[in-house]
């Protein structure tokens, strides 16, 4: 596990290159900085300056090595590495509000941009005119799109929105791809078709059907058959596609979670305003989502004897005799974690993931998965500082 403090400002968004030696991040301004790993240090090697507003989303295509960025200036740029420097190409998104998130599709022939204009722009490269064009998905989105994630078949797109709903749309572009085969989410997938919509009226007493908060983050599982999302009413939900499509939610006791990812087909790691990642385990047979444990640095050992003088000083300063109170942040990140990304192992056997947050720092977490034959996931061992899952 490692923690590196890049800045004193929040890291708005980040993206890794294919071999995880370089990270592109936005230091809460109009630029994108690219850092390269130098042993244990990180050195800045590029500064991408083109946006006129805060850069709200970055995604780095691993195979074609292109970076797409989107910003509050309502633009998106596709950057290509030419002769050692990154050259931008403007993409006209035709939106009149800020762009909020951007994601390359798995085959990297198109990307999706979510924006405050209540629509999603699907952009693809038109060879004849040699530039990027976009198509809009509008209905029935009624508020800002906060997060996007592509299904592995390159056609389906999950979108989490401020109208309290998580949806799955088809982003099939006939100019760049073949017609997709049927999936558990549906078989007819014309462009813009909505194949799934979570509940979201926030009624009490419903264990299924989302909640009443903004959907901050969505993530497909490795197979694409499961979809997880976190909502601002402190819930995390998993939907399983299929005829008997089920939605399972867990109301957590923590502050809202801002980002989520699958690390195996049945386990989810999420993080948010509580500043530490949390594990959830999904059991599709029982249809249950359970809290699996908090992943973070272990608490410091209890205080050795405190002198009488210190006791009185503490009483004076903080009305309590001990050095540290419950309120102290013993977590790795000192402020909310806003983005989580899988570094190694993919979404079905993740061995490393990375978190960035509002404290300007980046944490890299190791996950140890041991698959004992036939054993159910009954215990989680936290060996400092990695996580062991037996399952």
């Amino acid at each position, binding site marked *: 596990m490692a923690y590196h403090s890049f800045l004193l400002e929040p890291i708005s968004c980040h993206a890794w290159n294919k071999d995880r030696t370089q990270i592109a991040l936005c230091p809460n301004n109009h630029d994108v900085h690219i850092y390269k790993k130098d042993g244990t240090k990180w050195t800045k090697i590029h500064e991408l300056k083109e946006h006129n507003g805060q850069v709200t989303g970055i995604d780095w295509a691993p195979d074609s090595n292109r970076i797409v960025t989107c910003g509050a200036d309502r633009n998106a740029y596709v950057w290509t590495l030419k002769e050692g420097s990154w050259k931008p190409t403007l993409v006209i998104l035709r939106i009149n509000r800020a762009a909020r998130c951007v994601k390359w599709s798995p085959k990297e022939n198109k990307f999706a941009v979510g924006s405050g204009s*209540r629509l999603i722009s699907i952009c693809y490269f038109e060879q004849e005119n040699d530039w990027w064009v976009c198509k809009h998905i509008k209905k029935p989105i*009624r*508020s800002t799109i906060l997060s996007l994630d592509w299904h592995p078949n390159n056609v389906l797109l999950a979108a989490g929105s401020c*109208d*309290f709903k998580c949806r799955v749309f088809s982003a099939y572009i006939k100019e760049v791809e073949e017609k997709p085969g049927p999936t558990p989410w549906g078989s007819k997938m014309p462009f813009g078709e909505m194949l799934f919509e979570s509940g979201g*009226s*926030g*009624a*009490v*007493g419903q*264990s299924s059907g989302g*909640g*009443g*908060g903004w959907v901050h983050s969505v993530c497909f599982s490795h197979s694409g058959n499961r979809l997880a999302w976190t909502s*601002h*009413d*402190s*819930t995390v939900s998993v939907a399983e596609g299929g005829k008997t499509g089920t939605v399972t939610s867990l*109301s*957590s*006791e*923590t*502050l*809202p979670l801002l980002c989520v990812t699958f690390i195996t087909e049945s386990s989810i790691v999420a993080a948010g305003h509580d500043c530490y990642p949390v594990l959830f385990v999904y059991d599709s047979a029982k249809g249950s989502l359970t809290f699996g444990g908090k992943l973070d640095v272990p608490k410091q050992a209890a205080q050795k004897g405190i002198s009488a003088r210190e006791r009185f000083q503490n009483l004076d300063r903080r009305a309590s005799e001990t050095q540290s109170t419950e309120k102290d942040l013993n977590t790795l990140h000192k402020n909310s974690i806003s983005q989580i990304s899988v570094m190694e192992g993919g979404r079905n056997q993740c061995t490393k993931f990375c978190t960035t947050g509002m404290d300007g720092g980046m944490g890299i977490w190791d996950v140890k998965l041991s698959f004992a034959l036939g054993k159910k996931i009954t215990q989680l061992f936290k060996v400092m500082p990695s996580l062991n899952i037996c399952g």
Partner: protein
Amino acid sequence: MSKNTVSARFRRVDVDEYDENKFVDEEDGAENQLGPDEAEVDSLIRQGNLMEALHAVLKNPPINTKNQNVKDRAEGLVLKVLSAFKSSDIEKGVQSLDKNGVDLLMKYIYKGFERPSENSSAVLLQWHEKALAAGGVGSIVRVLTARKTV
């Protein structure tokens, strides 16, 4: 000065009403949500069976109804039950509720905070402490983010 600044009536126009993109919540029907059963709850309080009274008063929450009277009556009833508890029994009462029950209790507690009466705040604060221990800050977040509440 031009003539049209004489009248200030334009300042009373609510422009949001004319916004065609205005977000309207989904209607959920449920005109027949009547709130907890008053007679049942009263009889349980009189019998001294406070645990049952707590469970009874948390049934049928008037969440989807637009009728303010129903909501006020429900809140008053809940407050009656909460005040009838002895301080030492509050924790047991909270433990007997499931997750949704704790969330609903938290909603009623905050509703009660909105309009404090003689002793209500003290009682509600005691209940709040125990409900927080059971539901965590997540239950308070759900009170704040709920679109339709009691």
